[in-house]
């Protein structure tokens, strides 16, 4: 539940109560008032029985009449007792003292350690303590039988007391047995009950007088409409004090709202959505982005690698040769990595680690500038999940390919994008990504704290030139779930995907 809905709840109650002063009475309340007006003294609650009314209805009406200050109510507190789970067990299995006594009577003498065959160890301890009070004590690790005349009578009394407590018919006066069992502890449960008695007061009499005259319509039925009976009747006012039934509705998942918002912003900016898929080759996901084949991000502890049961043909396999050339020998005046490129690395299947792979492949297939593209798609990280990390998350990706794609236009596009998402005080700072140069991060001030929004940059020539792009490419990206945490006030990012249905049906919709 969000903070807002917590704090708004008492406010609603307050309005209802204020309203109550000017409201008229329900048929049940009228019936109770009229019943009480016939008495002259305080009446016990269970004696208030207006004709045709259930106990619970009457009790409800009494509460409302009290709240409306039309009756005077006096409360007395009454204590009663019931049996605990343990008490019920004693009643069913017998008192421990009795069980030990019976066992000893049967075998004449029993080793104390043997007693646990007859009853649980905890009961043995209690039973022996009780028997000691009758003078039956173990000696030398054994307990021997001895007739105790008053014992049987006392046990009988105790048992029938437990029975009477169980049935609710006990009497407090029964020879100190209540005190006995209270001392033994854990057998009785104390219940407190408040009894009410009441009488009509002056305002009640006045209200009753005022409301006399004709029956009231509670539910308007087709019959009442047809018969015209409504002409002679008064409608009972809508009872705002009764709680409304909870509506079991449905709405968008919060991420859907955010994703749609982001897609709208992009299309308004003239960007086109590009397709993509979860399963990629390292060739497109890594090599095409000039990420060296021994880069730490390519290791098993950072990326999910896959085995496939089908030997699928690699999508656009020419990326292997294009990448090999630039990794080994560079491009133009850029020297490349100078190592020996391994095409087996390129063919590895993985769960895409970013959607920049979609951008690069889309531009390879759409080399005519300008292109403005975006996607909002899942990416996967080989991370343990915790309150602020997920192994899969939505990445926003925006990219522009054109003559005027540069750091100036990148700053302008990002400011426009992040402002539209609602971020203020946006600032740009230098950063580093293997496939962009320059690289830049956007930060914004959220609740007085600086928050990193996402990365961006101008694609390196080693990325653009091998795939035949003659103009620069600028791109920016960011994880969307972190924005969701800010938007929906989440303290644990996992709740988005392992959700509480109540939260899903109750989160505050924005925008």
């Amino acid at each position, binding site marked *: 539940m969000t903070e807002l809905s917590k704090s708004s709840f008492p406010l609603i109650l307050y309005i209802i109560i204020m309203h109550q002063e000017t409201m008229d009475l329900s048929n049940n309340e009228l019936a109770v008032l009229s019943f009480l007006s016939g008495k002259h003294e305080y009446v016990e609650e269970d004696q208030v029985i207006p004709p045709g009314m259930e106990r619970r209805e009457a009790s409800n009406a009494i509460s409302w009449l009290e709240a409306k200050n039309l009756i005077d109510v006096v409360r007395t507190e009454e204590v009663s007792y019931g049996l605990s789970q343990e008490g019920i067990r004693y009643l069913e299995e017998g008192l421990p003292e009795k069980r030990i006594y019976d066992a000893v009577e049967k075998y004449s003498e029993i080793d104390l350690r043997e007693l646990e065959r007859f009853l649980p160890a905890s009961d043995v301890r209690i039973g022996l303590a009780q028997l000691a009070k009758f003078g039956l004590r173990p000696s030398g690790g054994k307990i021997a039988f001895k007739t105790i005349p008053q014992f049987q009578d006392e046990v009988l009394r105790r048992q029938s007391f437990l029975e009477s407590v169980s049935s609710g018919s006990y009497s407090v006066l029964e020879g100190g047995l209540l005190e006995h069992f209270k001392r033994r502890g854990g057998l009785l449960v104390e219940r407190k009950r408040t009894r009410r008695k009441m009488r009509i007061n002056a305002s009640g009499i006045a209200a009753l007088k005022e409301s006399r005259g004709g029956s009231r319509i509670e539910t308007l039925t087709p019959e009442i409409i047809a018969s015209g009976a409504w002409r002679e009747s008064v409608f009972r006012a809508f009872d705002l004090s009764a709680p409304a039934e909870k509506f079991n509705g449905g709405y968008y998942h919060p991420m859907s709202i955010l994703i749609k918002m982001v897609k709208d912003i992009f299309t308004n900016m003239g960007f086109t959505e590009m*397709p993509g898929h979860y399963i990629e080759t390292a060739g497109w996901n890594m090599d095409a982005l000039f990420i060296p084949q021994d880069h730490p991000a390519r290791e098993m502890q950072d990326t999910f690698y896959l085995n496939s049961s089908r030997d699928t043909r690699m999508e656009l396999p020419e990326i292997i040769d294009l990448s090999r050339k630039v990794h080994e020998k560079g491009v133009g005046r850029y020297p490349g990595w100078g190592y020996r490129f391994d095409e087996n690395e390129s063919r590895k299947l993985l769960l895409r680690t970013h959607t920049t792979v979609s951008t690069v492949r889309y531009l390879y297939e759409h080399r005519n500038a300008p292109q403005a593209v975006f996607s909002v798609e899942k990416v996967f990280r080989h991370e343990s999940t915790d309150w602020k990390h997920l192994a899969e998350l939505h990445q926003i990706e925006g990219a522009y390919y054109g003559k005027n794609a540069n750091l100036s236009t990148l700053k302008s*596009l990002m*400011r426009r994008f992040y402002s539209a998402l609602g971020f203020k005080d946006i600032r740009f700072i230098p950063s580093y990504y293997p496939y962009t140069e320059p690289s830049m991060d956007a930060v914004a001030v959220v609740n007085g704290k600086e928050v990193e929004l996402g990365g961006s940059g101008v694609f390196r020539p080693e990325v653009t030139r091998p795939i035949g792009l003659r103009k620069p490419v600028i791109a920016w990206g960011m994880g969307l779930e972190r924005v969701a945490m800010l938007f929906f006030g989440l303290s644990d990012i996992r709740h988005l995907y392992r959700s509480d249905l109540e939260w899903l049906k109750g989160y505050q919709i924005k925008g």
Partner: protein
Amino acid sequence: MIRRPLSEISHFFGESYLNRLKMFSGVVGYGLDIDDEVKVELNPDRLDLASFHSLERAMNLYYEGRESPLTLTWTDMQLLHVGKDALGLRPFILCFVAEGSSLGEKVQDLIDFQERIHSSIGKDRKKVSIGLHDMDKIHPPLTYVTARQEELSFTTYDGFQGTIREIISGHPKGMLYGVLIGSSDLAPVILDSEGSVLSVPPIVNGNHSLVDPGTSKLFVDITGTDFRALRDSFYLLAGELSSYGFTIAVPYLDIPRSRKRHLMAFHNRSVRVSRREIKEVLGREAVSADPVPALARMGLSAIPEGGGFIVTVPGNRIDIMGAVDIIEDYAKSSGFDAIPELEPQIATAGEVLASTRKAETLRGLGIGMGFQEIMTFVVTSSKHYNNREYSGGVSIINPKSVDNSVIRDRLYLNTLEFFSNNKNRGYPQRVFEIGKVVVNTEEEPRLCFGLTGSRASINDARKYAEYVLSRVSRTSISYQPATSGDFIDGRYVLVSLGSVEAGFMGEVHPSVLQEFDLQMPVAFVEFRVDKLMQHTP
């Protein structure tokens, strides 16, 4: 990340250092955290700045113009003789001598820097390992040769005494790095003229030449398997030591001439940058400031030539590969704030994919029927497939945990898990999810409606299914009873539109309800979105 206690930093560099460190983070772009400790999180490409001393040098230059360039003297000094057999085991070696005033507290910075190179470009000593030695404790000339592992015995830097074999099996560094020299009985060693062991690369250094705060003259050996990584390490270490005020002298290197040429040419190499390139990367109006002084503040000397500049790059700027890297330094030096923001005037009309529009339509229908949308993980629990056939056709080689180890091949299992997690919430529950699954290695979007409550049934499911179908398709619906282990026999059917199988619906079998610890009946409809909406454009 580099870190030092705050007290040490203030004591060593003075109070103004911290203020500058904060400002400079906005120039270079690194994370800075100051509490009891000063922590700097550098981007991985700037190893040349990875110590508080090299940062100080860079800041002195940027803020005060105080230059202390990395100067190397190439000499004919015959210091190290390299044996061919050693190169057979570990094929490359470089070395230099650094001399200055005694290291003092900087000895720790130097060792940290060495370890940083080992773990980054050194690939945990596989590509590069570095030995640091006190030159005054050894007797040149030195030799790089091989020794029999069971014969050569010495004391390691930390006092472990034994043969190389014993060190490999008993010393922690030996156990970690012994594998790097392979299965040979031999090991590469660097010895001095009296036979003392300086190091057994890449495993461990000897005690004899141990560097301590009193050391003022160092011999640095760099060995490895990748010449380019050696070259980078060579310049990074020389740069770090020169930031301590040490002078660097390189003795005669017994390496092939072409390789030596490459090594020497990497220092103070020239990169050509044209004004056109600067405008292309930063924007037409961004280039008002003169690049020459701006680059000089970053330690790059630029000389105007023709339509651009010739920029000289020191050897320890291993991040600079070409013009764009110089341009970024120019932008950083002027400050990113100084770069004007210009609208790119995008004239294209934006649009979303058809799949986005289809999903939006289906979401609307789901919500209209009173269903709550849910989203669950694509990489789901392998527990779901303990007693179930997996049809995805792909497996994750390196799953992180049981909960995230299988790419889902259907949606309803995740919905069952959702119901299971929400069984203490009010009933009836009606939810839907739109998301991709993988079937036989192919990705396909699905739509799943799930309903649960005391009266949930396949009749209920059918009502919703037919409503959705009637709104998105005019093709006639046909049902075909089928069997599935997850659904009650006779209450599981395949749903087809014309002749195209579009999905299935069913009432979940009580044994499956038990598997998910559910007490209420559950029914599902799961559609393949592309088949369901095959006529939607």
